[in-house]
């Protein structure tokens, strides 16, 4: 049953939920009106009949000779009982034979058979008898005796044909009209629910079209400001975000393909031209040039792999990594870069600064930041380490041209290269800062760029290992 119910359409279920209780109510009202009024009118008829039996006893008592003098079974001489309002009365003897009756009752024969007469007399049963010409009658009985003390049965009948017929008429009307009313109601509800569910159908069609690969990835929004309207808006919002995510993914793939193909094309063209025209070819120059492109490819694939790893692995939980000792790390990285033209200094404010992060990943973050700084610095880069409540903080400050405020968010996106930084041999492919941002956010830290006037200050906040120790104790 549950299963059947769950497999019905929403429309059918709504219709059944609405119509079934109403149908029950209609049936109940119909039954009550027909049955109760029928019962009430019959009870009134029975009352009348019983009063008549009592009344006629009085008549018989008042005129005993008239009533029961004649011996049973002798026709023609029996006096007639008074006939009141077409309500016949009969007197039966102990054997159930008709002794006498009121005028209209004589032609009917005994209204009850002997057994019925006994029950009517002794147990007060009520009978409805089909009398032919006069229609159905309600018959009650009562015990009496004749002047010789022999038991008699006194029957009183009330014609109930009209009452019964009107009850039956009403019942028939209910039996036909009730179902018709329910059917009409069901039809109305079916149509109304269908109408109300039309936006849902439209939504379904829209979703189907999207599933089939429609160009416009939006669901139709209903005009009415109802729940379905809100649902469509919410779903469209979700579709937009999915589309944006997949567009980002597509553009990342396209960018990655572009960045990989460019150095490959360069290598291939140089080698093919060198091989096609070997005359006067400076092979050692070609070798050096190709090597530059190969190094570019190497850097790029390292960066792509780092990003892919960051995307694929879930962040390590506390206690699983680090701590990274920032002072020594900064010194190592600075040493690596402290070469031609630009000096890289380290300024450690608090030698005990430790971050909850893998030392390798902090090394990569620092390396990428310092590489950027060295590339743009005029003469000097300073790597700073300090502690703030709860945070281990790294700063990389250069004295270069800086980055305009409106670009400071954008440079953290993948493959973003500001136009003057397009020199592909010196600069990366635009993944360095994306890797920094990704790594830092994995440790629930943050990174920000600010004006160092002149130059740029990159600051990285990582959760401090010391604070974590405090909380534990």
């Amino acid at each position: 049953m549950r299963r059947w119910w769950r497999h019905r359409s929403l429309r059918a279920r709504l219709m059944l939920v609405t119509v079934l209780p109403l149908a029950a109510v209609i049936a109940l009202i119909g039954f009550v009106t027909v049955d109760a009024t029928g019962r009430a009118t019959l009870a009134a008829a029975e009352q009348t009949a019983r009063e008549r039996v009592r009344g006629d006893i009085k008549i018989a008592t008042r005129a005993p000779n008239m009533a029961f003098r004649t011996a049973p079974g002798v026709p023609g001489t029996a006096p007639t009982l008074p006939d009141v309002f077409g309500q016949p009365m009969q007197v039966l003897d102990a054997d159930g034979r008709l002794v006498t009756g009121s005028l209209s009752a004589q032609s009917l024969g005994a209204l009850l058979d002997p057994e019925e007469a006994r029950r009517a007399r002794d147990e007060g049963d009520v009978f409805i008898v089909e009398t032919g010409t006069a229609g159905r009658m309600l018959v009650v009985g009562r015990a009496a005796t004749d002047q010789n003390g022999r038991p008699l049965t006194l029957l009183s009948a009330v014609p109930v044909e009209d009452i019964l017929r009107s009850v039956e008429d009403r019942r028939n009307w209910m039996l036909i009209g009730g179902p018709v009313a329910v059917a009409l109601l069901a039809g109305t509800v079916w149509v109304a629910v269908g109408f109300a569910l039309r936006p849902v159908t439209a939504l379904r069609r829209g979703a189907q079209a999207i599933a089939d690969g429609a160009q416009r990835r939006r669901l139709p929004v209903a005009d009415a400001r109802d729940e379905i309207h809100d649902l469509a808006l919410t779903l469209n919002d979700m579709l937009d975000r999915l589309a944006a995510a997949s567009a980002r993914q597509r553009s990342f793939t396209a960018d990655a393909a572009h960045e990989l193909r460019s150095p490959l094309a360069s290598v291939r063209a140089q080698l093919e031209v060198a091989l096609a025209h070997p005359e006067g070819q400076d092979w050692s120059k070609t070798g050096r040039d190709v090597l530059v492109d190969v190094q570019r490819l190497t850097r790029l694939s390292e960066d792509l792999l780092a990003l892919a790893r960051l995307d694929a692995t879930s962040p390590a939980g506390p206690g699983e990594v680090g701590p990274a000792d920032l002072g020594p790390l900064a010194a190592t990285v600075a040493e690596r870069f402290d070469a031609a033209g630009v000096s890289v200094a380290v300024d450690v404010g608090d030698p005990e600064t430790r971050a909850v992060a893998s030392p390798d990943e902090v090394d990569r973050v620092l390396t990428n930041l310092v590489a950027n700084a060295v590339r743009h610095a005029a003469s000097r880069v300073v790597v700073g380490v300090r502690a703030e409540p709860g945070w281990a903080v790294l700063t990389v400050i250069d004295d270069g041209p800086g980055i305009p405020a409106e670009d400071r968010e954008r440079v953290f996106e993948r493959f973003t290269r500001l136009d003057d930084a397009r020199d592909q041999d010196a600069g990366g492919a635009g993944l360095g800062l994306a890797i920094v941002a990704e790594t830092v956010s994995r440790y629930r830290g943050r990174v920000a760029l600010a004006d160092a006037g002149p130059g740029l200050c990159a600051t990285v906040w990582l959760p401090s290992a010391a604070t974590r120790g405090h909380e534990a104790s």
Partner: protein
Amino acid sequence: MRVLVVDDERRMAAAVRRGLEAEGFTVELAFDGEDGLHRAREGAFDAIVLDIMLPKVNGYEVCKRLRAAGIWAPILMLSAKDGEYDQADGLDLGADDYLTKPFSYVVLVARLRALLRRGAAPRPAVLEAGDLRLDPAQREVTRAGTSVSLTPREFALLEFLLRRRGEVVSKTEILRHVWDAHYEGDPNVVEVYVGYLRRKIDVPFGRAAVQMVRGAGYRLAADGG
């Protein structure tokens, strides 16, 4: 033959120059879009090799501006982007060929030669006659800046007439090119469609670009009527 190579991959551009010079071409290099545009305008090149992702002005824009300036030197687009739409966009903007990086040097040279054979005849991506414009790639027709909506058949008819603007084309030619070489129906269908076309591109503008030449066929006035 003078060839301009516009690409910001300097080592690659240099290698291509060395190769092409060995094949007998005269080659100039430009490393960004602005420089490329400037040299192409000044230099009277027989062909241009154009990268798409260029600093300053991108390859699409360079291509569009060169065509708008009436420079019809064949353009071979070169790009590490290999999306269908990237290629289609380049060609629709007026480029003549498209090669995806990394390319084969041999194929590059062969395609350049093929482009040079074709020469620098005007090959507008958008067809024009006076103020009547038809863009086949966008499937868009405008008259005096107002967009005109045409059915596919009307569009094909107008495109055919525009490509032969100023010439008289016979009904039979129109039937063969716009309908079907095996079209068996009533040839008067041409008359009917010319009527439709006039009602859309001429009558509302008080013009008469589509003219009937008695006994010969139809002509679209080169000045747009």
